């Protein structure tokens, strides 16, 4: 498996005496979009910097398309968007992107790229006069230089407005379609839930989960929420018969494990006319995140 875009084995990283990454194993396949989640200080940015070869790691190994982090081959294959990206304020967006293209040795269509990320009008203005979101877009434009085999995006949507976020995910999809492995470190759970293929969660430098959303859901065994709306004054009866909890005048909420879901539904159906409507809420990524990151254990 030499040509896997990213292969991390048993990665250990210390900051001073504290260990900030503990034996991380992580792989991303070509064309795969991986969401990397974790609380503030969990080690997401540290992991990305180690992959880039910007910081040394104490144990384990990292391979980018078979090359060592920081080597010329690895750098050429990798695109990076830092968290809270910034540039020299005296340069214009066009000049900055031209510099990056020259450093990467790419003959890129600079104007086209800047148009693409919505900086067409502002490309000849100084970056010092850009808004935060505009700087973020410029950062995104440099990710698109060349054809990266691995894209590392650290909180790419921070500072972007809702439309720009959609544009961003369109661009991420395009990168993935071209065969790039994309790693997205993020706190925006609802966003990554629908738009990534796999989810890894870090807690205090330990990888506590790494699977598809469906896989995580079934492993966690979190209860499904059934919200039953009573017709007329039957809410109390429904609550007592199903063991659910009344949440307002006409609704009852029932929690049941995924295996018992069908049995529970049949019981509710047997109540006949007393039930006006029923909603089924499977656990969301937020619930899963709480579960895996240990936040729900009091």
């Amino acid at each position: 498996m030499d040509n896997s875009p990213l292969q991390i084995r048993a990665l250990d990283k210390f900051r001073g005496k504290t260990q900030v990454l503990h034996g991380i194993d992580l792989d991303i396949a070509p064309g795969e979009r991986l969401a990397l989640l974790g609380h503030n200080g969990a080690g997401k940015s540290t992991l990305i910097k180690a992959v880039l070869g910007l910081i040394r790691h104490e144990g384990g190994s990292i391979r980018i398309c078979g090359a060592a982090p920081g080597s010329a081959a690895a750098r050429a294959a990798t695109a990076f968007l830092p968290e809270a990206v910034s540039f020299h304020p005296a340069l214009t967006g066009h000049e900055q992107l031209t510099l990056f293209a020259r450093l990467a040795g790419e003959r890129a269509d600079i104007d086209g790229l800047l148009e693409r990320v919505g900086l067409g009008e502002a490309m000849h203005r100084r970056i010092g006069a850009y808004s935060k979101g505009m700087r973020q877009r410029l950062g995104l434009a440099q990710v698109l230089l060349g054809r990266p085999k691995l894209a590392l995006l650290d909180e790419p949507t921070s500072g972007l407005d809702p439309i720009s976020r959609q544009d961003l995910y369109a661009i991420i999809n395009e990168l993935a379609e071209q065969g790039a492995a994309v790693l997205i470190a993020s706190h925006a759970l609802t966003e990554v839930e629908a738009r990534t293929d796999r989810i890894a969660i870090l807690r205090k430098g330990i990888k506590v989960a790494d699977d598809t959303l469906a896989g995580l859901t079934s492993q966690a065994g979190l209860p499904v929420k059934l919200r039953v709306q009573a017709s007329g004054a039957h809410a109390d009866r429904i609550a007592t018969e199903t063991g659910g909890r009344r949440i307002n005048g006409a609704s009852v909420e029932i929690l049941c494990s995924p295996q018992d879901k069908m049995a529970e539904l049949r019981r509710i159906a047997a109540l006949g006319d007393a039930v006006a409507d029923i909603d089924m809420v499977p656990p969301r990524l937020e619930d899963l995140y709480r579960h895996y990151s240990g936040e729900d254990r009091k």
Partner: protein
Amino acid sequence: MRRAFAIARAEMLILRRNRWLFMATLIMLAFALALSFAGSAPTGTLGVDMLTVSVASMTTLSVYLAPLLALMMGFDAVAGDRDRGSLALLLAYPAGRGEILLGKLMAHLAALAVAMCIGFGAAGAVAAWFGGAGAESLMALGRLVLTSILLGAVFLVLGYALSALSSGATAAAGLSAGVWLVFVVLYDLGLLGAVVMDSGGVFTQKVFPWVMVANPADAFRLWNVAASESVALSSGMAGAASALPGWAAPLSLLLWPVLGFLLACAAFRRVEP
């Protein structure tokens, strides 16, 4: 090398954009012209042309100004990018850290060269126009410009090293001021004190000239002085210059930028953005 040029072009744009190039040239021009005019009085007594006197006083000026301008550009080179947070991204690109520093050095040196050539050149032209110039004094002027750029290179690379070693741009600025003070002022004061204490003993005879030439600022002075007798005459440094072989000062001034650059690269390699 292509990447170093890319960095150099961007740095040059920045120097022009933030008016640094303009200000540096203006400062050089103002000081050089002022000194040329102020120093025009005693020409007759020494029996040399006015350009020679002007070069002698501009040599003294350059000892102070070239390191100062160089350090002002150099201290921000690494620390500024790191403070802004743009260093991590730059280092993720396939340019080696040596290449990045080399690119910055090319741009900064070019800016210094422009400031020196315009400043000293204009002052030299004025002096030659009013007081005459010979082939020797023109040579001295050319030497002054070239050695000033070399002296600037020394303090540029020292600035890079400080920039990479310090925790931030502010700390780097403070350290740079300290380095300037040590090399340009305190070093000579210390030597002077030692010579006075020694009162003409072994130290003054054998060691002192070598310790002196080890300092790039003094090597710069010695080179300009030793190469031109008339400049030496008018600046009163003939004593130390004659005790050293002719290659000592040029060697020192050529070696310092190379060693300083290697030091800066070593320091930069240890930076974790």
